[in-house]
């Protein structure tokens, strides 16, 4: 179309060293793209749904989740996300937000926990758990991660999570650390946070749940971990299984002080 202008630009661009140009343009372009998406994150739709689900009487017992204890007392939502996973006395387990929601939905509302856990992501009650997690996590927007480590089980889960993080296996010899064990690396154009430390505000553990642009889905941390393991070419991790919770403790404790920006929007 405007051939002259395009040629002009091309000539100008060629004056720069090829690689440096590609690098700068790509990084700037991606930053510009991400900025344009910030205003109007479809995650808001899931937050609104999650808030409704929290307050609605639901399940066989027709009660709401408002008596659910997320670690800060029954019904306290604000601040809960940045202190999870943590140990819960009533279940005697270290739980992340989603495994805790499964507990509350089964004890308070009468849902069958085993059924909930085997529901695929994005379907039925699992879609509801994701929406709930999105709203609950969003209520800690701007707060800083401070997972409790006072209980020995919490400490043990950190150690187990660390071992899981470095566990190398599968046909491609990948571990979590293959991609997330060093600073400043990326896959294609996507920056990879170093999850062995606090990678910074709103990065890594502090950026999920997030709306995934690539498939238009809302992804919780459980879903994020599940797909990491898929890409790692591992077998299928059970929803809320110990390995996923332990990894949550490892990454969450490492992220101490990082500010949560969730719900985020991601490629």
């Amino acid at each position: 179309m405007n051939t002259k202008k395009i040629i002009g630009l091309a000539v100008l661009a060629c004056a720069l060293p090829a690689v440096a140009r590609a690098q700068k343009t790509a990084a700037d372009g991606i930053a510009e793209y991400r900025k344009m998406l910030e205003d109007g994150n479809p995650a808001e739709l899931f937050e609104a749904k999650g808030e409704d689900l929290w307050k609605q009487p639901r399940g066989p017992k027709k009660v709401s989740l408002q008596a659910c204890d997320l670690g800060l007392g029954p019904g306290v939502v604000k601040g809960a996300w940045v202190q999870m996973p943590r140990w819960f006395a009533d279940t005697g387990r270290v739980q992340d937000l989603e495994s805790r929601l499964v507990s509350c939905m089964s004890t308070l509302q009468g849902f069958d926990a085993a059924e909930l856990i085997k529901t695929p992501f994005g379907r039925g009650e699992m879609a509801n758990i994701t929406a709930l997690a999105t709203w609950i996590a969003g209520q800690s927007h701007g707060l800083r991660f401070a997972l409790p480590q006072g209980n020995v089980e919490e400490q043990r889960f950190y150690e187990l999570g660390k071992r899981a993080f470095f566990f190398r296996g599968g046909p491609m010899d990948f571990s979590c650390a293959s991609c997330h064990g060093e600073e400043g690396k990326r896959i294609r154009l996507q920056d990879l946070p170093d999850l062995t430390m606090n990678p910074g505000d709103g990065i890594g553990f502090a950026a999920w749940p997030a709306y995934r642009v690539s498939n238009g889905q809302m992804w919780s941390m459980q879903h994020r971990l599940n797909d990491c393991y898929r890409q790692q070419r591992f077998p299928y991790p059970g929803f809320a299984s110990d390995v996923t919770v332990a990894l949550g403790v490892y990454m969450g404790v490492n992220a101490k002080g990082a500010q949560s920006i969730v719900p985020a929007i991601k490629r």
Partner: protein
Amino acid sequence: MKQRTLLATLAAAAAVLTLGCASLPAPDVLDAQADAMIKASFRDQGIAKVDRLNRDLGQKACSSDKAPSDAVAKQIEAESLASIKWPSGGQYLGDWRKGEKLAQNGRGMTWTDRSADPKSNGAQCYNCHQLSKEEISFGTIGPSLYHYGKQRGVKDPLAPESAATLQYTWGKLWNSKAYAACSNMPRFGHMKLLNEEQIRDVMALLLDPQSPVNR
């Protein structure tokens, strides 16, 4: 009443005692617990079976934030080098155009892939490496391979002076651990991620002076 209070006090003290005494297990106990936890947490899905969690010597030795001992690293490298299958008929090079397609393709071997046949897999090169100046979307986990052949002085890949580079490159693609025990790079030949023909195509991409890598 008094007795009940006493009992309660005792119970509370016992609880405190239990908690207070509870301490973190020793590192080797934690190692065993982690292995058991991992085993219990995964299940088969499609082509991704739980036997993928059974680690060989190298995978096990490289499953920590600490590097393996020199002796173990040497053993892994020696065993890996010995395992390399060199190309049939000494033919190292295929079609760089097919190689570029493979380099762009990051698919294969996940539980959502139907088949584990190498023909359905990509070589994933761009995920971690820069290869050409045309493709700006490349990863940085591995070093840049732009001008890979050119920088190694490969003017004619079939000339005798190119033989050592050809051999090393084939070996690296077949079993990267032959040259670095804990390399992040998959073992494409050894783990049957790519077949010989596909590796020849990737070789051509890296070494043919006409490929986008060396142009």
